[in-house]
């Protein structure tokens, strides 16, 4: 197994790398297309805004590379949002691997945005990625934008409205929360991803 972390400039890259180390996997950071293509598993972390993140992928000429990957690819937080067609955040075209648009979470009285904290995962369809997940599984979310529910959702979550928490389409996977900061639940999901 050779896991790489795509260096999309997000500040949570260190945390994701540490989480993999706790699972006994050393994943180098890279922006090199050949190394990314050669990896068995590719993780695209990301914290920040969609516009600068897509620009950075374009600057390193990685948009085509990421779209053409056939091995398991995991987008984390913003990295998951980038898998979709478009983000409402600064009207940004994204990688277009999942046919839907990411939208801002609406604020409402008593409903805080950003959605920040531990919220419950609501499984939608069976998949090896969710193997062993406890009935009452909570994950740590920090985000202001979200992907809608749809056939791509392996698990949803609810903050005022339903949104996608774990997604999958073909070999592309995404987690809106931070598995690297979601205690035992996050560790299990990362471990499952590495077995795909």
């Amino acid at each position, binding site marked *: 197994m050779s896991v790489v972390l795509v260096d999309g400039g997000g500040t949570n890259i260190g945390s994701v790398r540490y989480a993999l180390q706790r699972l006994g996997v050393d994943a180098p950071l890279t922006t090199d297309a050949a190394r990314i293509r050669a990896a068995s598993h590719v993780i695209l972390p990301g914290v920040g805004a969609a516009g600068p993140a897509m620009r950075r992928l374009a600057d390193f000429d990685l948009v085509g590379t990421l779209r053409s990957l056939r091995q398991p690819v995991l987008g984390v937080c913003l990295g998951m949002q980038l898998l979709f067609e478009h983000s409402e955040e600064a009207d940004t075209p994204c990688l277009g691997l999942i046919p839907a648009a990411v939208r801002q979470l609406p604020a409402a009285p008593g409903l805080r945005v950003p959605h920040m904290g531990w919220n419950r995962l609501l499984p939608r369809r069976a998949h090896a990625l969710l193997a062993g997940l406890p009935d009452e599984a909570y994950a740590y979310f920090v985000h202001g934008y979200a992907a809608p529910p749809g056939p791509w959702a392996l698990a949803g979550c609810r903050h005022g409205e339903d949104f996608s928490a774990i997604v999958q389409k073909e070999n592309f996977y995404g987690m809106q929360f931070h598995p690297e900061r979601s205690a035992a639940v996050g*560790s299990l999901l990362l471990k499952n991803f590495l077995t795909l």
Partner: protein
Amino acid sequence: MLTRRLIPCLDVRDGRVVKGVRFRDHVDVGDILDLALRYRGEGADELVFYDITASPQGREVGTAWVARVAAAIDIPFCVAGGIASVDGARAVLQAGADKISVNSPALARPALIAELADAFGVQCVVVGIDSLRDADGEWRVRQYSGDPQRARALARPTLDWIEEAVALGAGEIVLNCMGADGVREGYDLPQLRAARARCPVPLVASGGAGAVEHFSAVFAEADVDAALAASVFHSGQVAIPALKRHLREQGLEVRP
């Protein structure tokens, strides 16, 4: 549904965790990593590390201990104390912190909040506020509270500062009610209720926790998103598993 968060706060000085009463007379309570792992194991939802030596001395936090914590724990944590620039914040975030919290430097230069939000997103920008009720009944902010020599009262009303900070890009507010801090008689419910009404982003209550009932009261009566405490957790007077059982019995949602 989003659960209410319990956040042990670890005041850090010279690489050790310390605790004082009413911000003064600090005593050593343990090693950073030992306490971080202990709280993670007990079910803390998040940790705050507050470098109380940093801001008054005009230096930014060192990042070596931040990286050690990030490598060891798998729950989110925030680093506070003396972060006064985008570069200083970047160093802490790249070392593995999930959020950074600014207090006195943001009062000195409010544009710092907007610069941090632009650089890293509002989700990792926390604004900490030390607040005390003055003789005229108005809550006003305090600056450099970590240093008795430099601590000072400002003319700025706390509730106005909350609104300004959120408008500039604060993604979360930690309101430390200094009148209640360290005396364990309960959170300052009137002030937190007033803050809640003016604060559309997550609000964290700080100062005054002494018993499990204080936590259920602050969630139920001030509708805060999280409750922060230090001494009651460090002393073992309130254990997190028992606290979570109590909150669940009161109908409040918490992470198992």
